[in-house]
């Protein structure tokens, strides 16, 4: 079952941003780490969560050695409190939590203990929880992405990256719709819409709503409401030209025409050799070279997130 935004409405109004989609190498970990640092520097308490199953190395982007304590130490009761496995960084107010496998297992499980783990994470003290999901497309990754009402997609202006992002978005979108309805008949229609080889003539979300209306008007309305409230975010990484920047607007328009959703184009990060240098030195770019072009782009995006947070505590 998808956990919706209760997490963001907890008593300390924590905002959860999940960073996923696209493909490996599009810069999700780089952006998560550097954005987290920027938010901390703005005065917020930030916890970075490494949930990248394929390559959990957020610590490297923060200049930290491989972590000694992970979530499994808490699960196996080697430590008493969850905050004991939080790893401090050189930036005040910025902590790291690792243990991708345990985290995603908890998402996937009905086990009470594991559900408790998720609740503990949600109750950690902090203003922001930034979760690096990596490039995976599994059910638990999708559910984590949907945990906040809008995750962040990191895309590079290349066909492969855009294709993968759309694939991820489609899976997340239909999964969200499926959870919103109770009628088995309508769930069946959603499954058909996901299956492009299905014999039923449902090829896109618009045709799905039409078909759902024929079956159950009330359930169709629920789908429409889910579509209206699903507002993921987009960051375009490694842009090299003005034309690349405009691809972000085009993706936004394409999503509006296809899904009927409002995708927020948060910003872009320019291709910058300083990024590669900083990763090789295992030093976060925004600390190592704050005046580099890419660092400035990340900082600008972080300040947008921060101001949005101030405008509305509910993500």
């Amino acid at each position, binding site marked *: 079952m998808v956990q919706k935004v209760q997490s963001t409405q907890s008593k300390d109004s924590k905002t959860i941003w999940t960073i996923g989609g696209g493909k490996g190498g599009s810069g999700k970990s780089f952006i998560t780490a550097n954005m987290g640092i920027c938010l901390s520097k703005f005065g917020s308490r930030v916890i970075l969560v490494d949930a990248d199953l394929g390559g959990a190395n957020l610590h490297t982007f923060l200049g930290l050695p491989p972590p000694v304590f992970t979530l499994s130490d808490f699960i196996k009761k080697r430590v008493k409190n969850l905050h004991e496995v939080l790893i401090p960084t050189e930036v005040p107010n910025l902590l790291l939590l690792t243990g991708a496998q345990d985290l995603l297992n908890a998402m996937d499980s009905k086990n009470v203990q594991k559900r408790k783990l998720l609740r503990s994470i949600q109750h950690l003290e902090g203003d922001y929880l930034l979760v690096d999901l990596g490039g995976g497309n599994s059910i638990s990754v999708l559910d984590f992405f949907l945990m906040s009402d809008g995750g962040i997609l990191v895309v590079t*202006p*290349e*066909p492969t990256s*855009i*294709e993968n992002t*759309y694939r991820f978005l489609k899976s997340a979108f239909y999964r969200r719709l499926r959870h919103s309805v109770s009628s088995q008949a309508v769930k069946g229609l959603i499954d058909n819409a996901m299956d492009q080889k299905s014999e039923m003539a449902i*090829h896109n*979300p*618009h*045709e799905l*709503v039409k078909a759902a209306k024929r079956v159950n008007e009330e359930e169709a309305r629920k*789908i*429409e409401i889910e*579509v*209206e409230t699903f507002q993921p975010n987009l960051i375009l990484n490694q842009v090299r030209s*003005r*034309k690349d*920047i*405009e*691809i*972000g*607007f*085009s*993706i*936004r*328009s*394409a*999503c*509006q*025409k*296809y899904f*009927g959703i*409002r995708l927020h*184009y*948060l*910003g*872009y990060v*320019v291709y910058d050799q300083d990024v590669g240098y900083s990763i090789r030195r295992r030093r976060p770019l925004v600390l190592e070279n704050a005046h580099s*072009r890419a660092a*400035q782009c990340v900082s*600008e995006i972080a300040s947008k997130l921060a101001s949005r947070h101030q405008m509305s505590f509910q993500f």
Partner: protein
Amino acid sequence: MPPNWPVAIRCPSSFDTMAMKGIDEQTYYEILEISPGATSKEIQKAYEHARETFHADSLAVYSLFSPQEIQEIRGAIEEAYRVLMDESLRKSYDQSHDQILGQQQRSEMPPEIAVPLREKKASPVSAEGSVHTGDEIYRGKTLRQIRERMSIDLETIAQETRISLKTLEFIEGEDLEKLPPLVYLRGFLKGYAQSLALDAHKVVEDYLRFLNEEKKRSS
């Protein structure tokens, strides 16, 4: 960062309330993602963006839409642009869609981009006039057509861009002999394109390519 790069993301559209509608159910304003109160400059900008998004080579659409759907959307974009850029056609379209457009206007989001309003002047534009289509290149003739369709006179462009009226006339008239040297022409074309909310890079590129071809032909 190059000086002409946007420092902040500004959305080319301000219309975000189309929800789940097929392209054949959307109003012309929804198709171009603009508000029913959009100025001709905003329509032009939105059209440029939509044309680019659904261009045959666009990376943003080929894996989401079928070729047939892309074709259909492109047709709808061209039709929306043709009607909305024509004062009399737009008026009658607005009247016939009064109710639905009123709802859209009310539910419209605040614009994310501030485009200075340029009042339309009362110069009748022929409904039969050719529209700048996606496959056409920007040359002098095309720029003049777009400007006239937006009901902007050349003097206004001259005042806004500080390009002399004569130079603008030579650009539009494709007067090869009288055009300024290339180094200046680039800047003038860029300024002119920006004043019409066109893609400056594409205008300069197209115009200079056209110029080269004309020179080759005449030699």
